[in-house]
């Protein structure tokens, strides 16, 4: 299928003007998941997880606005 046909179909779908057959076709495509496509090792997975989390933190800046309360044992260590 050519790029133009894809584009027209998806444009109609995004704008809510797709024909029922087109809608079904796209939704079927969205429903099919090939789990074997993604193969990542555990260390890679952890790296990706940390990268995405850092990106979320950069966007929202939640560690700055809502810092975590320090655990009680850390507070004791600091006092002594």
């Amino acid at each position, binding site marked *: *299928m*050519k*790029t*133009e046909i*894809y*584009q027209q179909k*998806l*444009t109609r*779908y*995004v704008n809510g003007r797709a024909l029922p057959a087109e809608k*079904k*076709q*796209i939704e*079927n*495509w*969205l*429903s*099919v*998941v*090939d*789990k074997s*496509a*993604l193969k990542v090792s555990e260390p890679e*997975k952890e790296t*990706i*997880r940390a*990268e*995405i*989390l850092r*990106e*979320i933190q950069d*966007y*929202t800046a*939640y*560690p700055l*606005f*809502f810092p*975590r309360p320090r655990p009680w044992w850390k507070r004791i260590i600091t006092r002594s």
Partner: protein
Amino acid sequence: MRRNFSPDQVLVDRLLSDDTVALEELYDRYWYSLYSYSYCKLGTHQEAKFIVSQLFVRLWEGRHKLPAQFSLSSHLYAEVRRSVVLCLHERLNQEAEGVGAAQEPLPEFSLRELNKARRPAVPASSWEWVSRQVPPRPVQQAVPRTAWREKWQILAQLRYLKHSLQTVLHLF
């Protein structure tokens, strides 16, 4: 990593009180399935990462507007599908404008794959069962208008009972 076994609804409620621990727990629960789905559909790590991060950014920023009976998993999966479609649409628009050079935008989004994905609403075995349950439609006999017949002859041909019509319609 310390695990939190609270249900999603409890964690979503904790988001309302700006609990960042709850957000990170929800992120740990869902990030990989969302990421793998986006990667399978789009084929690039960059776009998959962007989609997942944006989902959680929107969740955090809209935490005070979440409805009462909010199902986080269905919300996230609906949003990731929407984001995949929008991302693919954006990519196709760029290619149509000549920004990208690839002719085939996405190997999986081909006619062959779409045909594979197409499936009947009712499985074939169910259709067979339905066709067995429904009796065959009786074929109606046409009565030619040109051939002159008595009314009872026509009705006999149509397999109506003479006396039932006599009583109901007073034809005779």
